[in-house]
């Protein structure tokens, strides 16, 4: 017998299998421990992977929880098509919580027709969690996305105001995920915590997952704004000196259409995207998210308010 304990990780286990198994374990554990889980589904690549993993975790039975889309109203049509297609294929019960309803009810102020509604989503999300009595919400957030996310537990406690308090996180030992909460509180569960953007794409390629077409290179009219390429359309109109150009682009992330930038890319297949992501020198949020540029701690501030 050796002196100390065995490893947490099996030697030689392929990293995608290790990540996948850990995620399946988290999904099953939260469903077993919590009364009313829900899976947050944006139609982006991370939530697509999460939905696929959820289906695997409980097969041959169906999903033991509904799927919730927090809809900013500023959508790419390809993403809404994918959302409905993905939910229908799994027979998932799709709930939609609309930021527009929060605006109409006076819960949040209307920032204006072409302004980002990203930050407003927190209120809509927390209202939906309260309305349905959810005590656990699965999200596709990854720790490599942002320095505040890098600090968050796999099971992240939210108080009755939906707040994350980074100074008082619950200890999280081993894989003993502890999701019990008092009424009104909930946990966010992040099965993809240890996945990187490259892991996600390698997994998508391995599993041949369906994704919204805007993740692959295509030609579209764009304008250059704040160092990003924004897709011209219903939610983005060229301003005074901006010149509309047709470029070959793809999206690395999918968010509020007013503030999600495209990247110039010729990657039209999964394999080409994997190669492009492996060689990238700019992070996915850095390349594509306008709202993360306002301050040093914008993600931390949003998360404290109850953001994803």
């Amino acid at each position, binding site marked *: 017998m050796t002196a100390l*304990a065995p490893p947490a990780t099996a030697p030689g286990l392929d990293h995608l299998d290790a990540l996948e*198994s850990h995620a399946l*374990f988290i999904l099953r554990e939260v469903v077993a421990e919590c009364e009313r889980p829900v899976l947050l589904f944006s139609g982006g690549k991370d939530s697509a992977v999460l939905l696929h993993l959820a289906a695997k975790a409980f097969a041959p039975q169906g999903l033991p929880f509904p799927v919730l889309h927090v809809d900013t109203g500023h959508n790419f049509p390809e993403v809404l098509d994918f959302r409905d297609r993905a939910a229908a294929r799994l027979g998932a019960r799709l709930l939609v919580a609309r930021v527009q309803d929060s605006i109409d009810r006076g819960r949040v102020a209307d920032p204006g027709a072409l302004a980002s509604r990203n930050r407003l989503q927190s209120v809509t999300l927390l209202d939906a969690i309260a309305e349905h009595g959810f005590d656990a919400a699965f999200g596709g957030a990854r720790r490599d996305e942002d320095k505040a996310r890098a600090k968050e537990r796999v099971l992240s406690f939210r108080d009755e105001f939906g707040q994350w308090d980074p100074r008082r996180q619950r200890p999280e030992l081993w894989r003993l995920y502890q999701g019990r909460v008092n009424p009104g509180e909930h946990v966010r569960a992040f099965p993809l915590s240890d996945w990187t953007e490259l892991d996600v794409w390698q997994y998508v390629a391995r599993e041949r997952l369906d994704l919204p077409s805007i993740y692959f290179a295509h030609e579209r009219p764009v304008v250059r704004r704040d160092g990003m390429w924004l897709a011209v359309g219903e939610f983005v109109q060229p301003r005074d000196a901006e010149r509309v150009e047709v470029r070959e682009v793809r999206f690395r992330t999918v968010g509020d259409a007013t503030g999600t930038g495209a990247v110039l890319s010729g990657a039209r297949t999964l394999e080409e995207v994997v190669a492009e992501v492996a060689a990238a020198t700019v992070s996915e949020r850095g390349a594509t998210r306008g709202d993360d540029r306002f301050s040093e701690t914008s993600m931390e501030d949003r998360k404290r308010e109850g953001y994803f």
Partner: protein
Amino acid sequence: MPVATKDVLRLATVGSVDDGKSTLIGRLLVDTRLVADDHLDAVAAASERRGVGDLDLSFVTDGLRAEREQGITIDVAYRYATTPTRKLVIADCPGHVQYTRNMATGSSTADLALVAVDVAAGLKEQTRRHLVIAALLGVRALVVAVNKMDTVEWSRTAYERVVAEVGALAAVLGAAPVVAVPVSALYGDNVVERSARAPWYEGPTVLEALEASDAGAWERSCGARLPVQWVLRQPGGGRTYAGLVSGEALRVGDAVTLLPAGVETSIRSIRYGGRALDEAAVGIAADVELDDETDAGRGDLIATAPLPRVTRELEATVCWFGDEPLELTGRRLRLKHTSRTTPVRVRAIEGLLDVGSLEVADAEALATNEIGFVRLATAEPLVVDDYREDRVTGGFVLVDEASHATVAAGMVGRPPFATARR
């Protein structure tokens, strides 16, 4: 392009505040070009705003506002690095004593501890404490970065004094292998790039040591373990039992015992994500079908010989994290062990571990961040191995019944290095 497969090495940083753990990780990530250009720009901007020089590398992992204001690490940051053969999962842990629970969180899933020691200050009390906690949690491989070598003019004598100090403690704790590297995280010597400043040093850089570590290799002495998380109903009426395999691999045809019931049966089939497997490796979230009808459910354990023991009385080591002390008449607690949660009572507090001397003293209570030995009684039987045999079936947490806060990390058994005080 084929998908490259790599294994995973999980490591945690260990050491006292200001010995340079976060700077070391920042240096490792920057010099391996794993920090994105925009993240590096943001670190530079934050450094300038706070007047701490051109590029404060600790800001690569210290991402919270309070951490940057105070220049300390409050909670674990997880970062990811890849080498041609490995995915590294790095838990950069806090050094302050009041954040011990966060350090324990980061170390509990680590296979290797990356220890930062300030060469001029030597082995501090807090570093000793962290090394003891890491050893308790089962982290046995150490890479020791003897840091700030630039402040002692790369003195070989100063380096060897620290290596001897750490080596002596590591030997008592049973940690092996131990690899030491003289570094300056600030200037990047021997972290990723080999330094010319220590011609007397012929060993690996920190990155080479991490790539070469065999922390994953482990001589097993207990059998396969599958704690049942969830029961899946199969078409045609069968049932499969889902859980994460630990201990050793599980194979079709293996003779197994369902515990705590004690039903002997065997594995008829194994599935993983809907696919049939002959063998499920450790770490695979498999679901298995048994040859005999059982009423197994969540909280039960499927095991091969040598079997774990079934008990309602535990001798255990605990790290106490509660704000109020652990006492015999304290708050009501629950215990979560594998997939089973049960009410628990503290029968006795049998000693307090002095992390400096490694001696055990009598104690009536355990204060926040203290480590002690306790006897627990559970309402339901548990199926356990000694923690040093299997981290999964040997580890548990204590949870406050009222607030649901996690208040202790528990390990079945006692570490061999604790000695009774004379």
